[in-house]
């Protein structure tokens, strides 16, 4: 039996797949989503902060949507309350779309990896 620590020659890592194109597309997306180095000039700082703030708001917004659905399913709201809640969340979503547009940010841009909580979108 070989000793676990006995070195075997290890060449350059090999990549095996029968679907190279699909993996290339997916890996490109992942690589491009990595946080960029922050440049220290005012426009980039503003952009960086906008991204951070909008990401946090999106996170909260999605949690609010989840809460609303739970209450809808629990049946402890009147139809008027449900309707108002839905309208408010709908408007919030619209507003966020506008803000994202203003800063030129897509859903992908805001999709920070939060580890175990997972990606937002």
């Amino acid at each position: 039996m070989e000793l676990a620590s006995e070195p075997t020659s290890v060449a350059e890592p090999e990549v095996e797949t029968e679907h190279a194109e699909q993996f290339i597309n997916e890996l490109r997306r992942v690589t491009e989503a990595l946080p960029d180095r922050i440049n220290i000039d005012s426009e980039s700082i503003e952009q960086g902060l906008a991204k951070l703030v909008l990401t946090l708001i999106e996170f909260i917004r999605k949690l609010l949507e989840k809460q609303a659905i739970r209450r809808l399913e629990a049946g402890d709201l009147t139809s008027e309350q449900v309707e108002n809640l839905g309208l408010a969340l709908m408007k919030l979503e619209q507003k966020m779309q506008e803000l994202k547009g203003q800063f030129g940010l897509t859903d992908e841009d805001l999709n920070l990896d939060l580890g175990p909580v997972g990606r937002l979108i």
Partner: protein
Amino acid sequence: MSVTDKDLLELETSELSLLETLDHVLNRGLVIAGEITISVADIDLIFVGLNVLVGSVETIEEVLGERAESDVPRLND
């Protein structure tokens, strides 16, 4: 296989190889120096060099009880 097909295959292979390498070397491995941790609303912002990564999700989950809902077997960590 025509010459063109072979060239394309090589290009594809080397691009995939590079992407896989990037996936390993850019986001993982030992991280040293220049780490400053700032807490904003229970979320740790970790500045590594000049990168900003959002980490330390435990506090978010505790506060919002997300994990309790999930019955998915968790394999990371």
